[in-house]
């Protein structure tokens, strides 16, 4: 039976969410990071989490749940608040 510890999942999701909300598309830079980048990121995140194992010294899931929670949090943050294309303001 798989036991899931909610502590690292909630804190990981929260930190990832905060970071994800800061992502903006900057059209002036000429680069556009579309959905494929995030799809690739989530696949790589799952592979890395599986390679890390049930870090740190947990024996709940076969992958690092905090790592996956942070990745999911970044994607959720990007989808909810990170959709704007506001350019970076360098001075007040």
């Amino acid at each position, binding site marked *: 039976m798989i036991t899931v*510890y*909610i*502590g*690292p999942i909630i*804190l*990981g999701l929260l*930190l*990832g969410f*905060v*970071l994800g909300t*800061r*992502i*903006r*598309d*900057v059209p*002036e*830079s000429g*680069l556009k*990071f579309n959905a494929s*980048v995030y799809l*690739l*990121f989530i696949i*790589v*995140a799952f592979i*890395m989490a599986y390679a*890390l194992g049930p*870090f*740190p*010294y*947990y*024996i709940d899931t076969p992958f*690092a749940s*905090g*790592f996956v*929670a*942070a*990745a999911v949090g*970044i994607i959720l943050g990007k989808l909810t608040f990170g959709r*704007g294309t*506001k*350019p*970076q*303001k*360098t*001075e*007040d």
Partner: protein
Amino acid sequence: MSTILKIFVFPAALVIMCLGVLTILGGHITPGGGFQGGAMIAAALIFCLIVYGLKDSPFHLSHDFLAAIESIGALIFVFLGIAGLVFSGFYLYNLGVDIYNIVPVAIKNIFDYPDPTHAGILPYLNFAVGLKVMVGLTAVVIAFMGFKEYEKGSNESDDEFEELDEGEVE
């Protein structure tokens, strides 16, 4: 910066951020913690700032955001310290573990960290320190990059003034 770097750095920064978060979350039982994890997240943000530049960075780090996160980190730390003082009489007492058995069970359950180690407030302190360090280190680099741009702008305006002065003399 080269196009290869511009394509590679953003996804790499996301992965580095996740590793930083994992370092923060494992701080109470593994090497690492709030400072180290926060520094790793800051490194990812700085990586983006260096490669894309301050204006074109995909992470929009406004002054308000940096100030808010820094304040939230400090307030969480102070709140946990004062909570220990209020409920046990000791500043920063680990209410979730309660080794002296002086705290009501309800309070102990509130501050408990739901993982097999039941480390109490330590993971929350790591979280707060992680937020502060992440923002602090990133703000230093943003400030330096901002000064550089300001210096560049002021040099250009000095050149314009010199040209104007020379024109007047002639």
